[in-house]
C-alpha cells in the first residue's frame, strides 16, 4: 500500500506478489507448528521446536527472513524497491521513515517469535493443551524437569511435539524456495516483473544498481534489518526462555508499553465504548420508540375509543335511560296516586259524594244569598 501511495505501482505489485508467497509460507508454517504441538497456539508454551520439526523450522526461517527483508531474500528486493520509491517521493519523507521503522519492528518481532517457538527448552505441557491430548505421557510432577514449573504433587505431562507429515511440509518447501528466489525476477539488475507490468521488453544489466542512491539505500535497509534482528537477539536470544511463566523481556523493561500493546492499544475497547455503545443506545431507543411512542399512540387511541364507549354506555345508562326511567316512575307514581280514587271502596265514594254535596250546597246557598 505504501508502494502504491508513493507512486510505485509496479514495485507495490511486486511486493504484493512476493508477500503472497512468504506470508502464505509463514501461515502454513505456523499451522504446521500448531499441529505439531497438538493445537497449541501460545508461543510461550512452545520452545525448542527446532529439534523436533527441522523442516518446519528451516522453511519458517526462510519465510521469516524474507518477511524481514534480509538481503537477497524475496522480501529484500521488493521491500527495498518500495523504500526506494518512498525515498524518491517528492511530497514528503514521512512515508519513507514510517516504512523504515516498520521494517525495523518487523525484523524485531519476527526474531522474538523465532526464539520463542524454535529455540530454548521445550515448554509444551499437557496443562497447556488440555488433558485429552493424544501425544502425551502422564508423568508425576516430581520427575519433570523444573522448566515446566509444575506444582508439587500435581500429575503433569509433556506433549510430544512432532514434525508434520509430508503433505504439510512439501508445500512449505515449495514456498520457501519461492521466498528465497522469487525476488530475483524484480531486482534492479533484471527488473523483469516491473517491465512485464509496464509492457516493456526486459533487459539485463548491472547498471540497474547504478541508479543514484540505490546502493546506499540498500545498505541502509540491510542495516535496519540487521538492527532489528540484533535487537531481537539482544532481548530474547541471549539467554533461553526457560519457563512458561517467565515474563517477556520487553515486559520487564517497559511494563506500561508492553501492556498497552498486549491490549492492542485498547482499540477494541475504544470501539466498544463508542461505536458499539452508540449502536446499543440507538437500538434501545428504537425499541423504546416502538413500545411507548408508536405503540403508545395506538394504545392511547384504543383507550380513547374504549373510554368513549364507556362514556356512551354511561350516558345511556344514567342520562338517557335515567330520564326515561324517571319519567316512567313519575307516570307510575301518578297512576298509583290516582288509583286511590277508584280503589273500589263504596264507603269512600259515598264519603266523597257526601262531601261534594255539602260543598255544592254551601256554594249554592252562598251564591244565592250574594
Amino acid at each position, binding site marked *: 500500500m505504501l508502494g502504491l501511495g508513493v507512486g510505485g505501482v509496479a514495485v507495490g505489485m511486486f511486493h504484493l506478489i512476493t508477500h503472497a508467497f512468504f506470508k502464505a509460507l509463514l501461515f502454513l508454517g505456523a499451522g504446521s507448528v500448531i499441529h505439531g504441538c497438538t493445537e497449541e497456539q501460545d508461543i510461550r508454551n512452545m520452545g525448542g521446536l527446532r529439534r523436533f520439526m527441522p523442516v518446519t523450522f528451516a522453511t519458517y526461517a526462510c519465510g521469516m527472513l524474507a518477511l524481514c527483508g534480509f538481503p537477497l531474500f524475496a522480501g529484500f528486493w521488493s521491500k527495498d524497491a518500495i523504500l526506494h520509491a518512498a525515498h524518491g517521493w517528492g511530497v514528503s519523507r514521512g512515508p519513507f521513515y514510517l516504512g523504515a521503522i516498520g521494517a525495523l519492528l518487523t525484523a524485531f518481532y519476527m526474531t522474538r517469535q523465532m526464539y520463542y517457538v524454535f529455540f530454548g527448552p521445550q515448554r509444551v505441557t499437557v496443562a497447556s493443551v488440555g488433558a485429552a491430548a493424544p501425544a502425551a505421557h502422564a508423568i508425576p510432577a516430581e520427575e519433570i524437569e523444573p522448566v515446566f514449573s509444575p506444582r508439587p504433587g500435581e500429575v503433569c505431562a509433556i506433549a510430544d511435539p512432532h514434525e508434520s507429515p509430508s503433505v504439510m511440509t512439501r508445500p512449505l518447501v515449495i514456498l520457501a524456495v519461492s521466498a528465497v528466489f522469487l525476488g530475483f525476477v524484480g531486482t534492479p539488475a533484471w527488473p523483469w516483473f516491473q517491465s512485464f507490468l509496464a509492457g516493456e521488453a526486459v533487459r539485463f544489466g548491472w547498471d540497474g544498481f547504478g541508479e543514484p542512491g540505490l546502493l546506499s539505500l540498500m545498505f541502509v535497509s540491510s542495516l535496519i534489518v540487521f538492527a532489528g534482528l540484533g535487537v531481537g537477539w539482544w532481548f530474547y536470544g541471549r539467554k533461553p526462555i526457560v519457563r512458561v511463566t517467565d515474563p517477556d523481556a520487553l515486559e520487564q523493561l517497559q511494563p506500561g508499553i508492553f501492556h498497552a500493546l498486549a491490549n492492542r492499544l485498547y482499540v477494541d475497547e475504544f470501539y466498544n465504548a463508542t461505536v458499539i455503545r452508540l*449502536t*446499543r443506545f*440507538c*437500538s434501545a431507543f428504537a425499541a423504546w*420508540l416502538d413500545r411507548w411512542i*408508536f405503540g403508545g399512540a*395506538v394504545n392511547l387511541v384504543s383507550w380513547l375509543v374504549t373510554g368513549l364507549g364507556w362514556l356512551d354506555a354511561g350516558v345511556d345508562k344514567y342520562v338517557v335511560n335515567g330520564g326515561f326511567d324517571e319519567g316512567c316512575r313519575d307516570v307510575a307514581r301518578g297512576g298509583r296516586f290516582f288509583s286511590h280514587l277508584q280503589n273500589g271502596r263504596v264507603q269512600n265514594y259515598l264519603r266523597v259524594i257526601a262531601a261534594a254535596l255539602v260543598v255544592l250546597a254551601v256554594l249554592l246557598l252562598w251564591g244565592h244569598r250574594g
Partner: protein
Amino acid sequence: MITLLTLLPMVGGLLVLAFYRSRDLARLFAVIFAVGALAIALLFWHGLAPAHPGMQFEETHAWVPSLGMTYHVGVDGLGVLMLVLSAIVVLMSLAASWANEKQSAVYLALVLFLEAGLFGTFTALNFIHWFIFWELSLIPAFFLVRLWGGKARARAAAQFFLYTMVGSVALLLAFLALFLATSAPGRPGSFDFVELAQLAQSGQLAGALAQNLHWFGGSPDHLAMLLFWAAFLGFAVKTPVVPFHTWLPLTYAEAPSETTMLLTGAMSKMGVYGFLRILLPIFPQQMQRAQTPLLWLAVATIVLPAFAAWVQKDLKRTFAYSSINHLGYCVLGVCVAVKFTGTDAGLAAEKAAALTGVLLQIFSHGLTAAALFWFVALLERRSGGLRGIDDFGGLRTIVPVFSGLMGIAIFASLGLPGLNGFPAEFLIFKGAFPLAAWATSISVLGLLMTAVFLLTVIQKVFSGPVNSRWEAMADLTTSERLALLPVIALMFVLGLYPQLITGMVHGTVMQWVMSLNQGMRF
C-alpha cells in the same frame, strides 16, 4: 382461468373441512390443492407475454353496473409474481404444518381459504371486487392467530384485525370519493383500477375531483392529497410502514410460526402490491408532491426496525422486525420512482432498476422470511416452544444440518451476494441512490444493522458454548430436509440468476416507468 385459480383453494378448503375427522386425509388434500394452485400459477408465469404491457388473461363480466361494479380480473408481471409467491408460501406453510398435530383439518382449511383470498386480491382489478378479497383474506388470518396462537393470541388477533380495518376503512372512503368524482349524470362512476389509472395519468381525474367534489371548500389539489393519504394509510398499515407497524411484532410472535410464514411471506406483500397497483398508477402526482415525507417514512421503516431487532430477545420478534425492515426497502424503491425532474429521461433507467428491485425484493423476502419462520417452527417443535435468543447456544455442533440450512436462510436475508436477497436490495439501492441520495444513504444503516442483528442470532444460537440442555436435540429428519431443499435451492437460483424474475416483470416495469414519466409531465 383466473377464476378457476381463485376457486381452486376455496373448493379445496371445503373438501378439507369435509374430511375433518381424519387429519391425514385432510393434510393430503390440502397439499394436493396447494400444489394444484402452484401449478396453475406457474402456467400463468409460463403463458405471460413479458414484453406485452398491460393486463393479460383478462375476464370481465357485468356485476352491478349501476354501481360501477364489474367482475374484472387480470394479471400483469406483478400479478403473476404475487400469485406464484403466494402459492409457494402457502405450500411451504402447509409443509411446515404437516407434522404439527395441533393444527387440525380446520386449520388447514383456513390456510386454503386464505390462499383464495390472496389469489382474489392479486387478480381483481375492480376496487369493490378487490376490496372484498382484501377483507376476506383477513378473516382466516384472524382465526388462525386467534385459535392457534400463543399466550397473548387474543390481544394480538384483535389488534391485527382492528388495525388493518382502520386502514381499510380509510381506503374505502377514498375510493368512494373517487367513485363519486368520476360519476356523471346518467353514468355511474368508476371503481376500475385500469380506468382510474388512465384518468389520473391523463389529468382528467383532478378535473373530475374539482368538478364533482368540493368538500369544506378545499381546493382539488388538497382533496386529491387527502384521498391519497387515506388510501396510503390502508397500505401503510398492511405493509407495514413505520409508525403504523406496532401490530406486527406482536402478531408475528403470537401467531403459530406456520401462520407467521403466511403473514410475512404473502400477506405483508398485499401492502406493497397496493402501493404498486393502486397508489403508483392512480396517485402519481400526489406521491410526487408528498415525496419528501414519504421518503422519511421509508427511511424510518428501514432503519428503526433494524435497530429495534437487535435488542429483541425472542427469535420471532427479531425476524418480525427484520421483516418490517425488508419491506421498508420496497417502500423506498416505490417512493423514489415517483421522482420527476422535468427533463430527466435518463432517470428512467434508475426508476426501472428501483422498481425491478422492489419486485425482486417482494419475491425474495417472501421466500426468505417464510423460510426463516419455518426454521423457527422446526426449532420450537424441538425445544418445546422455547425460542428466546439466549435459550440456545452451540446448536451448530448438535444439529449441524439444521444450523447450516437456517444459516443459509439468514445469510439470504442479510443480502449475501449469491443468494436471493442480494440482487433485490442491490437493484433498489442502485436505482434509489441517484434519485434520492440522502434517503438512500441513511437507509444503508439499515443494511448494516441487519447484518449486525442477524449475525448476533447466528452467534448466540448456533455458536458459543453448547447449552447442555439441548444435547439430545434431533437434527432435521430426511423428510424435513427434502421439504426444505427446494426452498434453499430457489434461494441460490434467484441469487445467481435473478433474470428469472426480472425478465418476467420487465414489460410491467417499463410500462410503469413510461406512464410515470408521462403522467408527471403537466
